[in-house]
């Protein structure tokens, strides 16, 4: 049965010439798990907001959305609120109250549910998600991943029939993200909730979904089963590059039959189709330069006297002209380490040197003048002015030098940009200060695969110019492609470092899909390029006669 039907939907924001979404029609069956993807600014969030009446932005709207056969605007208030649940893009944004228990109860209180009923439903939901332990805590104390789970739980207590999620895993580490997605899948099959989610990290979610919707410049260009979408979009490398590794490999090698999606299917595809006489590629030895750009030695830091050490004897060295990626779980202290490196937090013990000079010897804020710049995790903290134009003027940024195009955004208020566009604008501002050492805190969150490739290009060019880049990221695939060296952050210090090839072949969770796919069959293959090269080098297996 059809639960959601959209037909001819067009929406234009006020004071905008172009519609943000135009002429969109699709439908979703009850109990389906649909994923919406597409480039940054292609209108995913806008479309999702049109599906939830209370969140529909002001603007010019045409076309219709009907839920369970009833036009959205005709739905009774309470039904509209409880039957359609919406989980927002940033974990902090959705939180209304200060206590976990109250956040869980909030929706039911609004619907006038009796207190006993509320307690019962909350108790049930808290046990399902294992929230019991932090039931009485302040919301502010929770980590990003916990907040996101809380958001989901506080929507689910209202027992929605349709659950809409806008990039729910953007800020989660790879393990938490995979957990979150499998929780969704479980909800879908256990409770037959219909789910539609926008997402950029497609590796884990595409194999699980029933339907893949692809948007491009406000239009819906594909709408069917994932494997069909992949064969339909063979000619669109910009969209294909965001798909799961197995599918990309299949496309690059122009495989036949239906596309593999999961790691296991990818492995089958390789093992059945290709030899492994040559097991590894010749490794170009990476030689770091001799002089260190940044040096941590035995750094200890805590936020309050009673608190625990967040940086617990952190020591590492980043050499000049290298791209250094730091990976690690949510709340492990990566942002803290980066802030300490930028001189924003003062460790209580240990030494931090930048270009051989101790941080405190940079008098008069000379550190921030053409020496070091940082892109913070929360990019909204970077914006000062009321249009993007003023924003870029203020720091003398030249948009013609940028490898990505943001010229169509110049007259917008920074807060009116989509999540990814904000990220790109903030990056443009940071690059404008022309630092020698660049610290980036999750620069790729909320970006589509195409934009990520652009950023990789930017970083490589910077490196050629002699800039050192330190990146904190949850995006394993991104790190595998662009890093010279990677490091794993755990328990307040860096527990292992290495070049991407060896680093990722050693890990079993913090690793790329290609590495998991080829482990034991090829050696040290980490990126799609590696796998493609190895496969072509080895050549196809002879097809057994049928």
């Amino acid at each position, binding site marked *: 049965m059809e639960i959601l039907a959209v037909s001819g939907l067009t929406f234009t924001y006020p004071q905008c010439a172009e519609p943000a979404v135009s002429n969109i029609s699709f439908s979703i069956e009850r109990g389906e798990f649909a994923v919406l993807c597409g480039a940054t600014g292609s209108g995913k969030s806008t479309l999702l907001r049109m599906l*939830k009446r*209370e*969140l529909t932005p002001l603007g010019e709207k045409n076309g219709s959305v009907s839920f369970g056969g009833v036009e959205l605007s005709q739905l009774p*208030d*309470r039904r509209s*609120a409880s039957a359609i649940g*919406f989980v*927002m893009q940033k974990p902090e*944004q*959705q*939180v*209304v*109250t*200060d*206590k976990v*228990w*109250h956040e869980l*109860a*909030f*929706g*039911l*209180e*609004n*619907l*006038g*549910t*009796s*207190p006993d009923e*509320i*307690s019962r439903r*909350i108790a049930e939901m808290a046990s399902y998600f294992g929230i019991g332990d932090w039931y009485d805590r302040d919301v*502010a104390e929770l980590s990003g991943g916990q907040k996101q789970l809380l958001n989901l739980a*506080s*929507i689910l207590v*209202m027992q929605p029939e349709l659950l809409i999620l806008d990039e729910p895993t953007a800020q989660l580490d790879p393990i938490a993200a995979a957990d979150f997605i499998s929780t969704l899948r479980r909800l879908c099959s256990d409770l037959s909730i219909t789910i539609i989610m926008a997402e950029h990290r497609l590796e884990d979610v595409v194999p699980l979904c029933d339907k893949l919707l692809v948007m491009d410049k406000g239009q819906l260009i594909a709408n069917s089963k994932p494997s069909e979408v992949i064969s339909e979009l063979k000619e669109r490398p910009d969209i294909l590059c965001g798909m799961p590794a197995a599918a990309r490999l299949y496309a690059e090698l122009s495989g036949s039959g239906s596309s593999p999606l999961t790691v296991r299917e990818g492995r089958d595809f390789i093992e059945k189709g290709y030899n492994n006489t040559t097991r590894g590629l010749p490794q170009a030895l990476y030689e770091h330069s001799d002089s260190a750009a940044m040096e941590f030695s035995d750094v200890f830091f805590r936020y309050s006297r009673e608190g625990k050490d967040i940086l617990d004897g952190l020591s590492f060295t980043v050499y000049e002209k290298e791209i250094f990626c730091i990976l690690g779980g949510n709340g492990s202290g990566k942002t803290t380490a980066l*802030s300490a490196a*930028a001189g*924003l937090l003062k460790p209580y013990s240990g030494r931090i040197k930048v270009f051989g000079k101790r941080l405190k010897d940079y*008098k*008069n*804020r000379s550190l*921030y*003048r*053409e020496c*070091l*710049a*940082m892109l*913070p995790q*929360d990019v*909204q*903290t*970077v*914006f*000062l002015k009321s249009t993007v134009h003023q924003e870029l003027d203020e*720091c003398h940024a030249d948009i013609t030098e940028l490898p990505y195009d943001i010229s169509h955004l110049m007259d917008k208020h920074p*807060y009116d940009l989509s999540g990814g566009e904000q990220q790109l604008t903030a990056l443009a*501002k*940071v690059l404008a*200060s022309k630092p020698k050492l660049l*610290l980036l805190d999750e620069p790729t969150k909320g970006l589509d695969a195409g934009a990520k490739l652009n950023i990789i290009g930017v970083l490589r060019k910077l490196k050629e110019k002699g800039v050192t880049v330190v990146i904190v990221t949850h995006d394993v695939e991104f790190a595998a492609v662009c890093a010279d060296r990677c490091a794993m952050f755990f328990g307040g210090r860096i527990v292992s470092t290495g070049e991407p090839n060896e680093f990722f072949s050693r890990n079993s969770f913090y690793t790329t899909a290609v590495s998991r796919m080829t482990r034991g069959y090829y050696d040290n293959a980490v990126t799609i390029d590696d796998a493609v090269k190895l496969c072509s080098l080895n050549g196809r297996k002879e097809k057994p006669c049928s």
Partner: protein
Amino acid sequence: MRSFSEYNPIVIAVWFLSVTGIAMFCNYPLLMVISLVGAVAFFVMRNGLSHGKTHIFFWVLFLILALANPLVSHNGKTVLFVMNHNPVTLEATLYGLNSAAMIIGVLYWLRSFTQIMTSEKLLYITGALSPKLSLVLSMALRFVPLFGRQSAKINAAQTAMGLYRDDNIIDDIKGKSRVFSVMVTWALENGIITADSMEARGFGTGRRTQMRRFRFAAADIAFLLTELGLLGITCAAVGTKSLSFVFYPSITAKAPDMLGVLGLISYGLMILMPMILELVVNLKWKYLRSAV
């Protein structure tokens, strides 16, 4: 067995209101002494010997308040001495002392009240009166630390982007106001998103219920009834001139009658109630532990 601060917030609030209310609206010196001694004892019992600054502040204030009246008011018959051609009278001095005892006593009570009545409890009470206002209050309460953290983040981001060019006061002030401005924009925009999130979860679609987190147990009711009984007796004594004390023009006090004595005893008992409770709890725990 719960200690006093874990009782239902309504019970706690009624108790504090009665204790401070009687102290504020009656000027019978003995009652003031009971209130002041009780208040100090209650505060010390809860906090031990910490909060030295609070004590010093209150007692300095006590002196000032006690001295202020005789210097300003020259009512009363018994002149002690003359200062700047103005008589300083015994009545005015005693009156000042009495008022000071009242005010300092009440201030001590309120300090304890502020400690016990955490925001969550107050929201529970205001929620019973006006759920909407209580929600606005609870949101504001959450925003305060949130804004603090965001300001710190913004400041850090701006520093790391090199927006503070020089290291001097003018630059700092400029930077601070820039941070404040960004913070306000963020706060307002974020507020809109919060509002959207509320509506998306059905806020404003009709009657709201509140999930009760504080139940009315038998002990709460017993406490409340005892307390109201004692309050009734005290009020009767205060209201019917059984406890009358006139300062001006000259001090006239008649010995309290039966009702008056009862009223004083009730007030004393009322103040002792939570302390007795605490004592019983402690004894019980001790007994339980030794029994294990």
